[in-house]
């Protein structure tokens, strides 16, 4: 005969409600861990998937994700000529916030070096890769766009041709992939007036110099688009991604590139490390502290509940002592209830969490390690929380039944 269960049967609705409450608390504890794991996944997903061995960025920066990096696009060519390099492709990343169907659309734009990179590495759930040099985009489903949707960005309209899953930036915004040129277009989208003024200013600068006076045809040239002017730099990109031949010694290449004074190079692991340490670390500690606090709160609440359940039974416990029940019987009664409460709460947290977490705006990843870890915590706090009740129960005297 199990006294703990018999008592619960007697108080079924209250016990279930209590388990529910504990379950919700545990669900939040579980969710906290899940949010952290989600942050890690979000942060590293792009770097893991994009398939670059090296990230070449602006000198002394930790770009392109942790901070802004600007390097000339033609760095691509310098890198391509290095021994061991299969490909070097420019990459652009920056956030935008625009309106779409009267709602704010926040996305992290990624410019891929089309046609070398057509987004073949992207986990598509619908649609296709980028097949055209212009006006096509692949977006994450988090952005809420559908295949065929047309979005005006800058002067042009881009059509959604592919949808990815779980590709989001560290800020939780969905990623949107364009060809590099389109991405640069959107980034450097100047109005006609701004361009006209800039060209006029250019002409005026040339006219003021000797060369303008001696070569009047240059004045006409200054009015041309900037890409037609050899004297102006090529557009800046965020990084150049380098893929190496299998078997190439990464360190040798890194050493060589590190010798260049205009760039900094990171391996894939270093880039991941930058993301995790620099950007995710504070969130991790924040969530960790919050989580510890919740665990302490859960323990206290559970202890109070177990204590009240015990207090209510104190007369019966005195009676058990009176008829000679061993302490193990009394201990078992309280401990089993505490453990059952923890267990039911955990099960509740698990199943309800499984259903609720996917509805959260950011990723919540519940992994097996975390589940085991939390199960152990629940086990420990159940035992701890029973302590107060057990202490009370063991200190009651059997003669309290008669008094």
């Amino acid at each position: 005969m199990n006294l703990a269960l018999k008592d619960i049967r007697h108080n079924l609705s209250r016990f279930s409600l209590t388990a529910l409450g504990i379950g919700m608390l545990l669900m939040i504890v579980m969710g906290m861990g899940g949010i952290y794991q989600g942050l890690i996944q979000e942060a590293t997903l792009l770097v893991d998937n994009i398939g670059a061995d090296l990230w070449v960025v602006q000198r002394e920066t930790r770009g392109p994700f942790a901070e802004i990096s600007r390097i000339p696009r033609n760095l691509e060519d310098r890198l391509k000529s290095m021994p061991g390099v299969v490909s070097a492709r420019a990459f652009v990343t920056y956030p935008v916030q625009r309106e779409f169907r009267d709602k704010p659309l926040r996305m992290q734009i990624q410019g891929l070096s089309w046609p070398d990179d057509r987004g073949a590495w992207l986990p598509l759930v619908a649609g296709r890769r980028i097949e055209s040099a212009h006006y096509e985009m692949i977006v994450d489903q988090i952005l809420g766009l559908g295949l065929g949707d047309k979005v005006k960005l800058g002067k042009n309209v881009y059509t959604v041709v592919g949808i990815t899953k779980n590709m989001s930036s560290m800020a939780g915004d969905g990623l949107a992939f364009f060809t590099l040129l389109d991405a640069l277009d959107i980034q450097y989208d100047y109005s006609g007036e701004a361009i006209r003024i800039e060209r006029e200013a250019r002409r005026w600068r040339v006219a003021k110099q000797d060369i303008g006076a001696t070569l009047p045809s240059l004045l006409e040239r200054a009015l041309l688009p900037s890409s037609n002017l050899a004297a102006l730099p090529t557009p800046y990109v965020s990084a150049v991604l380098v893929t190496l031949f299998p078997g190439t010694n990464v360190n040798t290449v890194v050493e060589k590139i590190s010798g260049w004074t205009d760039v900094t190079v990171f391996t894939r692991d270093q880039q991941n490390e930058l993301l995790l340490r620099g950007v995710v670390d504070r969130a991790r500690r924040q969530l960790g502290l919050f989580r510890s606090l919740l665990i302490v709160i859960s323990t206290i609440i559970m202890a109070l509940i177990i204590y009240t359940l015990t207090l209510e039974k104190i007369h019966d416990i005195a009676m058990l002592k009176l008829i000679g029940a061993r302490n193990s019987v009394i201990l078992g009664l309280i401990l089993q209830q505490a453990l059952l409460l923890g267990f039911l709460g955990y099960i509740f947290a698990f199943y309800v969490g499984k259903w609720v977490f996917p509805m959260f705006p950011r990723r919540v990843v519940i992994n097996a390690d975390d589940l085991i870890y939390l199960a152990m915590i629940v086990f420990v706090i159940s035992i701890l929380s029973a302590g107060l009740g057990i202490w009370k129960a063991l200190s009651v005297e059997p003669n309290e039944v008669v008094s």
Partner: protein
Amino acid sequence: MTASTLAIRGQSLTKIYGSGNAEVTAMEDVSFFLSTGEVVALLGPSGAGKSTLLTIVGLINSPTSGRLFIGEDLVTDGPAAKVNLRAYRRRFIGYVLQKTNLIPFLTAVENVRLALEINDVSGRAARNRAMELLKSLDVVHRSGNLPYMLSGGEQQRVAIARALANRPRLVLADEPTAALDSVRGRQVMELFRTVAREYGTTVMVATHDHRSLDIFDRILEMEDGKLLSQRHADISSRIAKV
């Protein structure tokens, strides 16, 4: 300790509750002897100290001074326990308290089984024994009910069944028939009598019920915490019972 040697002896037992101005002497210098298989009534007005004596003999309360022997064992020397009182209670003593004290979340039969299970009798054996006791106390039809569904008298009879479950050497009952009609009250007293005869159980019953006094071997009377007299019940009625 065996049944034949189990006799209970109290030596100058005194119980003082509280201290200072609030001091109440509930029992003073009480000495007595109960033989094996003896059925003894404890009479006295309210507040005389009957319940106090029962709880001290039942090892629920410790005396302020005096000694208590069960069989050859000195079980308490003043407030100091000389044996594991809880184990003693579990194995040798059955209680019927003045107020019924069934475990509210256990059914009638489970309450009885509980007493058996803490004495390591479990499963079918425990269930059969419990049902048999409930039957002999005429509450077997209520065996599956929780205590709050039972009348006061039914609860009291379940409590008696629980007290007798382990065939204790000593049964202590505090007004066990208060909630019962006279017929049922008498049945309970006769049940104690039977248990005493069949198993050599010593029974001590605090009672106000003068109608059943003929069942007892001996009557102890208390007043103001003192034991007045120890008179033997009418010898002829006693012989008639045996």
